[in-house]
């Protein structure tokens, strides 16, 4: 075929190119700790420990422990003091970070590929033999409280935290990762954390079968396994009294919570229904559905020519400052929702059109919308993996959630299987005529009454 008639055709299709992607290798040690890595050939690497522990494993008494522990992690180990640890890390030119979420905790380091052995050694120390000295604990209380205070002004975080609190009320998933202020408080009210609580938490949750040593970058899997064997074989895999903490299902309650404050300039509103768990087959159609609704904020240049219907309406009537369709999934449940920020005179309209977008998905979504959603989702899945750290994070989370890394080729195949009728069926299953959880923060007088929101979850015409 003449090259002139092949304009716009790549030499290799996207699907074909995915098949040639580097494979993620997975090995398990004797004590159950899993080691997974992807050799991308970069000169740098990210290596870390992903642990299956989070605020969901805490109870009312010790909520906030995981978060506090994350603060304590880099404040010295039995072998290195805080200064010595910091010096070791900085002399490598590495970055040491951590995060805690509801079901996962991660400690990871970004460093040069050749410094992998040192990195694994430091990480294993941080996780296994954290010093947790009392003076440091006292100081970190103030830091945690200050962080709590700071997050109060991040209304998106507040809104989504409250969404979990109300949707999963009475269950561990409803708890915030940071915990209440009483946990970190100085005042010994019986509710605040002590060193004993932290030690207990580590003993109960930091067990080898729940940990994954993940790495991405210029790493060699065999080398990594060897390092893991030498540093992490000591991680315990037995529970005291054989009491294995088992996650019970968390009940979702259709409910709402309204934090009205007319002094704030913008209203932050979120509405969510119970979605699919991470391992459910429905997760892909729901991700495509979210891609159909898409996201928007004032900085988007497309104006009223944006492809998402909701975005077009939002722009034309100036309904919101931003919105995004989100999907949080946990091991056995999830939240599927829309979050938007608008001024106080357009909340009702924005809520109406958001629910209209949902109804459209459940009833009359077209092939062109679904094709657009599929492509957008594929692009975002690939686009997210732009660096060793996102790749390593994905490896860690996937191994914890699914027991393996789900390759892009598989995501591709599952996305391609989503047709309009599949999308309609799946969306109807999760969205149509279900009780949502609603949160409003800010000047929300105009936020629609819950009964009307509930009525908009189905169409009489259908």
């Amino acid at each position, binding site marked *: 075929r003449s090259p002139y008639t092949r304009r716009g055709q790549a030499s290799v299709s996207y699907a074909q190119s995915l098949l040639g992607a580097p494979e993620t290798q997975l090995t398990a040690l004797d004590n159950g700790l899993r080691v997974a890595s992807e050799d991308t050939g970069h000169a740098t690497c990210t290596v870390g420990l992903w642990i299956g522990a989070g605020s969901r494993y805490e109870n009312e008494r010790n909520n906030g422990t995981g978060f506090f522990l994350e603060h304590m992690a880099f404040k010295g180990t039995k072998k290195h003091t805080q200064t010595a640890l910091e010096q070791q890390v900085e002399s490598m030119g590495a970055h040491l970070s951590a995060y805690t979420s509801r079901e996962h905790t991660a400690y990871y380091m970004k460093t040069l590929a050749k410094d992998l052995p040192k990195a694994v050694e430091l990480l294993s120390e941080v996780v296994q033999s954290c010093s947790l000295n009392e003076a440091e604990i006292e100081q970190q209380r103030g830091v945690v409280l200050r962080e709590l205070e700071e997050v109060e002004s991040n209304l998106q975080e507040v809104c989504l935290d409250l969404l979990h609190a109300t949707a999963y009320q009475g269950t561990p998933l409803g708890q915030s990762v940071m915990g209440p202020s009483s946990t970190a408080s100085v005042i010994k009210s019986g509710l605040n954390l002590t060193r004993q609580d932290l030690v207990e938490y580590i003993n109960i949750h930091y067990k080898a079968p729940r940990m994954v040593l993940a790495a991405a970058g210029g790493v060699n899997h065999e080398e990594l396994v060897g390092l893991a064997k030498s540093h992490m074989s000591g991680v315990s895999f037995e529970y005291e009294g054989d009491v294995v903490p088992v996650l019970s299902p968390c009940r979702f309650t259709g409910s709402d919570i*309204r934090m009205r404050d007319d002094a704030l300039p913008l209203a932050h509103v979120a509405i969510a229904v119970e979605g699919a768990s991470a391992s459910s087959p429905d997760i892909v159609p729901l991700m495509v559905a979210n891609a159909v609704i898409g996201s928007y904020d004032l900085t988007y240049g497309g104006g009223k020519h944006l492809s998402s219907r909701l975005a077009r309406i939002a722009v034309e009537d100036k309904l919101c400052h931003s919105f995004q369709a989100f999907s949080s999934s946990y091991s056995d449940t999830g939240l599927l929702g829309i979050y938007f920020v608008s001024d106080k005179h357009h909340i009702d309209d924005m809520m109406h059109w958001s629910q209209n977008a949902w109804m459209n998905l459940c009833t009359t979504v077209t092939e062109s919308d679904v094709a657009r959603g599929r492509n957008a989702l594929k692009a975002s899945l690939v686009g997210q993996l732009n660096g060793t750290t996102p790749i390593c994070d994905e490896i860690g989370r996937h191994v914890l959630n699914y027991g393996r890394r789900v390759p892009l080729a598989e995501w591709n195949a599952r996305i391609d299987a989503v047709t309009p009728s599949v999308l309609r069926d799946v969306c109807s299953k999760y969205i149509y005529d279900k009780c949502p959880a609603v949160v409003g923060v800010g000047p929300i007088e105009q936020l629609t009454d819950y009964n009307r929101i509930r009525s908009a979850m189905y169409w009489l015409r259908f």
Partner: protein
Amino acid sequence: MMSTVTRPGVILPYYRATRNTFKSLVFPGAMELFTVAGKAELLIYQCCLSFLFPAPAGTRLAHTDIKIPDFSDYRRPEVLDPRKSSQDSSDTRKAFSYMLTGATAVVGVYAAKTVVTQFVTSMSASADVLALSKIEIKLSDIPEGKNMTFKWRGKPLFVRHRTEKEISTEEAVNIGELRDPQHDKERVINPKWVVVIGVCTHLGCVPIANAGDFGGYYCPCHGSHYDASGRIRRGPAPLNLEVPYYEFLDDNTLVVG
């Protein structure tokens, strides 16, 4: 649906203003707090209290301190257990709610229909009027040859028990001679009984029974003569006496109207 309404306490504006002093509360060495003068002191005391007694009403320190109340008293039994997914029971709960709503709607429609029909039918004839609309007459009270008058619908009603002679006379009349030709058979169900309205068709006077030249009725106002069948025979009246709707319930009872 359960909803919680919370407002940041009144303290919030002051909280922002006294940021620095508030922070010192949480660090070790909080002893020097109470020497701070002025408004701040009172507010910090309130803050202090709220640390000692977590989650007092109206003031809170972080959104993570908000406790969602326990709504177990209001929950349906299927969703009381927080460790059971609510998805399984979702269909039955919805079905129950919708059935209840549907049943109420049907009952409501019937109630509305009843009320509307009651208002609309109130415009039709009232009971006293309807009561007057029919009259029941015991025929055994009327001897042969006699004409009895009853008040019916505001008008006089003549019920005449005819003799055999009167019957045969009336049946033998040549219809061609009549101003308003009607055979006797057309005017009676049972020839023994004649039921007519006693209003003269001329100008509305009441004819006298067993008077006139034809053995029937005579109207004294302008001299109209009616026969024993109530037909006009002589005089100014144009039509026969009106025969109302009547029926015989049994041999002894006549119902007119």
